[in-house]
C-alpha cells in the first residue's frame, strides 16, 4: 500500500472514532451516568492523558541533542511557572516558545 493511502485511511478511521465518541451521547443519551466509578474515570482521563503525552516527551520536543534538551527544559520550566500563575493557554504556549528561542540565543553567544 502507498504511504499516502495508509495515511488517508488512518486519518478517516481516527476521524470516525473521534466523531462517534462525540456523537453518541449527544444524540442518544438524555439521562445522566449513574456509576460514580465511570464518572470519576471520565473526569480523570483527560488530565492523565495530557500528562502522559507531555512528560517526558516535552524535553525532547525541540530535538534530541543535549542543547535541544536544555532549551526544552527551560521552556518546560517557564510553561510550568506561567501555568501556576494561571496564564491563558495561548500565553503559556508563546512564553514557552520564547523561552526556548532565548535559550538558543544565549547558547549561541556563550
Amino acid at each position: 500500500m502507498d504511504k499516502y493511502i495508509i495515511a488517508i485511511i488512518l486519518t478517516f478511521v481516527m476521524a470516525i472514532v473521534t466523531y462517534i465518541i462525540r456523537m453518541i451521547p449527544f444524540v442518544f443519551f438524555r439521562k445522566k451516568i449513574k456509576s460514580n466509578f465511570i464518572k470519576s474515570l471520565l473526569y480523570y482521563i483527560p488530565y492523565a492523558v495530557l500528562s502522559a503525552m507531555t512528560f517526558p516527551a516535552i524535553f525532547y520536543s525541540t530535538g534530541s541533542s543535549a542543547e535541544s534538551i536544555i532549551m526544552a527544559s527551560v521552556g518546560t520550566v517557564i510553561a510550568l511557572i506561567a501555568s501556576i500563575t494561571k496564564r491563558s493557554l495561548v500565553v503559556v504556549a508563546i512564553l514557552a516558545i520564547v523561552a526556548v528561542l532565548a535559550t538558543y540565543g544565549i547558547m549561541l553567544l556563550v
Partner: protein
Amino acid sequence: MAKISTLTFKKGVSDGIPIALGYLSVSFAFGVTATSKMINPLISLLISMTNLTSAGQLAGVEVIASATATTFLSALFQIILTQLVINARYFLMSLTLSQKLEDKFTVADRLLCAFGITDEIFGVAVSKTQPISKKYMLGLILLPFIGWSVGTISGALLGSILPTFISDALSIALYAMFIAIVIPAGMNDKKIIPVVLISVALSCAFFFIPFLKVVPVGITYIICALVASVVGAIFFPIKDNEEE
C-alpha cells in the same frame, strides 16, 4: 431573560473569536510538528478538518508517521484505541451539553453539531445559562474550525521553510498548552495531582526502561492514562456534581 441575550448565530460567532485565535497558534504548532514527522501538509490539513482535536491528532500523527504496509493492521488497532482513550472526555462533555440544548434541536442538528465539541467550545457553551440553539452552536464552531484548519496548513507549509531552530521551538507549544490545561485543574482540585503524577511516572518508565521502550507510543498513553485514572477513580472518587 431571552430578550437580554438571545443565543443567536452572531453571538456564537463572537464567542468563538478568542477560541479561534488560540486554535490558530496551537494548530500552527501541530502543522509544524506533523511536517517534522514527515506527514504531507495536505494530509495534516485533512487530519485537522476531519478531527478537530489537539491531543488526539498529535497522538494520531505519531502512529501515522510510523505506519507502513506491513504494520498497517497494528497501526489501525493503535489509532482506534488511542483515540478512544484520549477522546473519552468528549463523551462526558457531549453528555453534559446534550442536556442543555433547546427543544428545537433535532437529531440532524445534533449529528451536525456533535462534530464541533472540543474542550474550549464545550467550556464556552456549557457556561451559558440559556438553552443552547442550533444557530448559536454552529456560530460558535465556525471560526475555531476555520482557525484550526488555516493554522494547520500554515504551520505544515511554513514548518519546512522556517529555519530549523524556529520550527523546533514551535514544537514545544502544544505540550506547553497541555501543561496549561493540567496545572490549573490540579490547583483547583488537588485529587487530580496524584493521578497526574502516576501517569507521568508510568510514561517516563515506558520511555526510559529498555524493555518497555518497545511498546508503541500510542499504547503507552492508553496504559498510563487508564491505570492512573482507575487508581484515581478507586481512591479519590469524585463527589456528585463535581465532573465540571
